[in-house]
């Protein structure tokens, strides 16, 4: 094992070896999760707190299930609903948490960098479950695991990420991860949804789906949030679907065995055609959800091992 980090705040600070270590361990948890008895005790005695400053059903459920299967005591805190409204600052929240002696803290926050800030102030291991538009590392890891299982490797693949890149932490983490693993990345979307400076990230940028999808091995669709559809960033939902929604015609430009991914929740008929999402020969969307639990188990297991090893050389 080579994974020495104290926290999992982003893909940015992980090495390719860290990533491989995480994915290899996650494979073992995939096997466990498919067995009749899905329980181990590697986190027994440890306390995991899920703190979501932003609503999330899927990610929170995935972390909760991961913690429970590993034997941790799991608590969900709905922060969005409570203390923030009373004017408590993030630092105060961190101090309150410290007093509860958690071992693992899973945090989602609507602002970029907020999870880093929290991690500086608490004594436990912190897992970033998404901060603003910055990073969502476990999503990128579960996407990587899904791709690796489908394609047998993570290098020398052509991977197209399509849609609202600008507002997407999923895109950022995926770009970092897949870049580190030496795949070829393409970003496709209208210029209003491509972040400035993206061309300097070592990716190719396209505003045309047919061109961008040509010979792609992996097509990763992103969710387009409703509030972006009303003329602010794109003229309308229907024009977006026409130009950027993934349908059979557009997908035909990718390789015949290309897989289709989506981090969910999907807007059928906005960014993806329902029949493609449901096509078991192309879509790996359900598998992504399954991999999510396994990857989160692996991440928490590794961080807990580092916790138990005591204060070692900390590499955030």
């Amino acid at each position, binding site marked *: 094992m080579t994974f020495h980090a104290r926290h999992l705040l982003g893909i940015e600070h992980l090495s390719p070896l860290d990533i491989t270590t995480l994915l290899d361990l996650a494979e073992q948890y995939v096997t466990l999760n498919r067995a009749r008895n899905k329980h181990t005790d590697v986190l027994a005695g440890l306390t995991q707190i899920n703190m979501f400053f932003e609503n999330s059903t899927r990610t929170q459920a995935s972390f909760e299930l991961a913690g429970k299967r590993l034997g941790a005591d799991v608590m969900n805190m709905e922060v969005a609903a409570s203390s923030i409204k009373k004017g408590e*600052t993030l630092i105060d929240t961190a101090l309150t948490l410290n007093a509860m002696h958690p071992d693992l803290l899973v945090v989602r926050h609507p602002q970029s960098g907020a999870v880093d800030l929290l991690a500086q102030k608490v004594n436990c291991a912190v897992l970033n479950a998404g901060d603003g538009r*910055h990073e969502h590392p476990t999503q990128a890891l579960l996407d990587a695991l899904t791709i690796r299982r489908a394609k047998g490797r993570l290098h020398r693949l052509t991977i197209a990420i399509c849609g609202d890149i600008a507002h997407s932490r999923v895109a950022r983490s995926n770009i970092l991860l897949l870049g580190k693993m030496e795949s070829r990345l393409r970003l496709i979307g209208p210029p209003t949804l491509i972040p*400035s400076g993206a061309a*300097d990230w070592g990716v190719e940028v396209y505003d045309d789906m047919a061109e961008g999808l040509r010979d792609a091995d992996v097509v990763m669709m992103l969710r387009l949030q409703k509030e972006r559809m009303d003329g602010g960033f794109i003229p309308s939902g229907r024009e977006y679907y026409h130009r950027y929604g993934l349908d059979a015609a557009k997908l035909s430009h990718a390789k015949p065995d290309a897989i289709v991914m989506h981090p969910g929740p999907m807007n059928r008929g906005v960014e993806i055609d329902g029949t493609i999402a449901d096509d078991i020969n192309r879509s790996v969307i359900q598998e992504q959800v399954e991999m999510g639990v396994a990857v989160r188990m692996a991440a928490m297991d590794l961080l807990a091992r580092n916790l138990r090893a005591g204060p070692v050389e900390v590499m955030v």
Partner: protein
Amino acid sequence: MIDFYMVNATLIDPEAGTELPGGLHIREGRIAGVLPPSAQGPGGARVVDCDGHALAPGIVDIGVKIGEPGERHKESFRTAGAAAAAGGVTTMVTRADTVPVIDTPETLEYVTRRAAESTRVRIAPMAALTKGREGQEMVEIGFLQDTGAVAFSDGDAVTTDTKVLTRALSYARSLGAVTIGHPQEPGLSAGATATSGKFASLRGLPAVSPMAERLGLERDLTLVEMTGAAYHADQITTAAALPALERAKGQGLDVTAGTSVHHLTLNALDVGDYRTFFKVKPPLRDEEDRLAVVEALASGLIDVISSMHTPQDEESKRLPFEEAASGAVALETLLPAALRLFHAGHLSLSQLFRALSLNPARRLGVPGGSLAVGSPADLVLFDPHAPFILDRFTLNSKSKNTPFDGQRMQGRVLGTWIGGDRIFPTPA
């Protein structure tokens, strides 16, 4: 009666552009004579031996935010004065973006009175250009001028209504009042906390194109051309804005420009992992912009270096980057930070003090900025080479939000005089 000799100094003369050994005779608060290198002062006279260190006109700092009225927990006239004295700043040109806004002669009188009873450092107050800095109605420019306002500025609240701004500029022109603008297109820069580009995008921060500054400046300069007003741009921080500035000056418009010491010495990457002490307004720029601005300062296209001293308490900075307050304290770090440009070989000491002292004093018609006979004896004595590591908790400002915490700096203020009185270090 104050009558003494400062001998054995290196005189930094921004007017002559020289750095020569010599001394000064100070009498009744003014510079009464410039002494030759070997002069030791007449027998029996009070003498300050400068030990060969640099003696320059005190810094005139345009754009100092003081928390009075409204935010005295962040900075008071007393603490700002102490910081200024320790930083070699002899005149603070204070901002009007207080709570309430300084937009009436009455509020301005309060400020002047509070300043006078709190600090020996000279205060040259600015007033808002529009009431409440809301960009709708102009303030009583004439009355405020009579009360002592040296310039009119809404700070970073850009007036979007060009008709209002045009009228205010025309009216200000009739009174010879200088208007200070914040060149920034408010639509593009709304909500931005970083300069757009690879770094901001990776960090997921809402960002503004550097072009927003050029767009804001071009608009302001067009209105200056229309009205003939005297205009100073508070901070030019991007390469893209420089040609417009150069053109306006070439046309003979009454235009000057400043920049902040932070934009001269730091760049966007310094934000690193969301370090909020590096959040300033406008946001830090790319290195190419920083270098272009340094070059423009050296060539004289940019006239003034300001600290843009903006005290913020710990609570307003210990927040996620987007939520955290903007601004940095800099009265005390202005000189050592600006000296980085000297040590890097970009500017000579006399060039540096043109931008720190002479130009801002001249632009606003306030005393100081000169070593000429008859000028007020507002002086700073410093060792440009003395190294130190900055510990933010040693700063005199009430707020400690400096981006230079823990950094290696060079340049120590050894003494500050105002009107011939030594105010730093405080005489025992």
